[in-house]
């Protein structure tokens, strides 16, 4: 009796649960219609949004094209102000870039290496000075770069000045100073035959190597052998005398 009652109860509960579950899982037509309406509305909203975005994108693309044209016109006017054009400006920029690369290369050298290539620093300084004579150097895009280049050259020149030994000429009566004797000094070259080095390193101060004056501050270029130029100068001087 008890078992029968339990069986009936279990069947009743199971069928109730199954029926409720089935009813919940399945979508009703009303639910379906609500979903269709909701998605249709969202789709319409998104379509409106896409259309609006397309309009904004087209407007931005037009603005971008117009800005390109305005910029090209502005640049042409800028170059025309200094009597130049885009091609010349590009060539000038390339020249400045080459000088910048050279300055950077020299800045990476040790003091000793820099001393050996001091003429390149002089050439670079002359080149930078030449750039300033070009009217394109008035353009900020170039003047800023030229200012930076000048700073690099100054720093190279400072490094050269710091690395370079100097000697202040004394009197003949007291010091017996002439280029030969100066070169012979232990703290200079310890080799009298290197005197043309001092002469060539001070061409701006010494016209005749036989004539140097007390108080003259002479540069003492580094190195332990004469360069071809120094040898040639010495040969010319010996032949003259």
């Amino acid at each position: 009796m008890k078992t029968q009652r339990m069986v009936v109860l279990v069947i009743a509960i199971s069928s109730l649960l199954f029926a409720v579950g089935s009813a919940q899982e399945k979508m009703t037509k009303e639910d379906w219609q609500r979903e269709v309406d909701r998605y249709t509305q969202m789709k319409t909203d998104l379509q409106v949004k896409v259309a609006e975005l397309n309009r904004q994108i087209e407007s931005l693309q037009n603005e971008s094209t117009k800005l390109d044209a305005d910029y090209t016109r502005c640049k042409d006017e800028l170059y025309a102000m200094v009597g130049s054009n885009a091609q010349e400006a590009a060539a000038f920029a390339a020249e400045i870039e080459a000088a910048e690369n050279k300055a950077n290369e020299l800045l990476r050298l040790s003091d000793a290496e820099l001393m050996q290539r001091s003429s390149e620093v002089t050439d670079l300084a002359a080149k930078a000075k030449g750039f300033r004579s070009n009217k394109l150097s008035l353009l900020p895009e170039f003047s800023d770069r030229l200012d930076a280049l000048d700073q690099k050259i100054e720093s190279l020149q400072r490094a050269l000045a710091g690395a370079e030994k100097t000697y202040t000429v004394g009197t003949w009566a007291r010091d017996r100073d002439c280029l030969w004797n100066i070169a012979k000094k232990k703290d200079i070259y310890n080799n009298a035959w290197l005197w043309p080095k001092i002469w060539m390193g001070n061409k701006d101060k010494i016209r005749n190597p036989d004539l140097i004056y007390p108080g003259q501050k002479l540069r003492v270029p580094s190195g332990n052998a004469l360069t071809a130029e120094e040898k040639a100068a010495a040969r010319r001087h010996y032949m003259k005398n």
Partner: protein
Amino acid sequence: MNKRQVRVGMVSFVIAASFLLAGCSSSPSEEQMRQLDELKQEHAALQREVSQKEEQKAALEREVAAKNAKLKKCNDDKQVVQSRLSK
């Protein structure tokens, strides 16, 4: 089985049957469910398109801002050059 048990069983059966019938009678057809799925897919595709367009718009806005800055600098440079030339 006594009468009370039979009654409980029948009532449960009637309730279950009514739930089942109610569920079956108003369910959408397969065609309608397919229609709803298509609608959901179209909605998802549109959402992707909107995000893509918004990214494109943002990139263009950045591009336009950069070009405006370049143009402004060019106009400023013109003034600088004018003043340098007049010196």
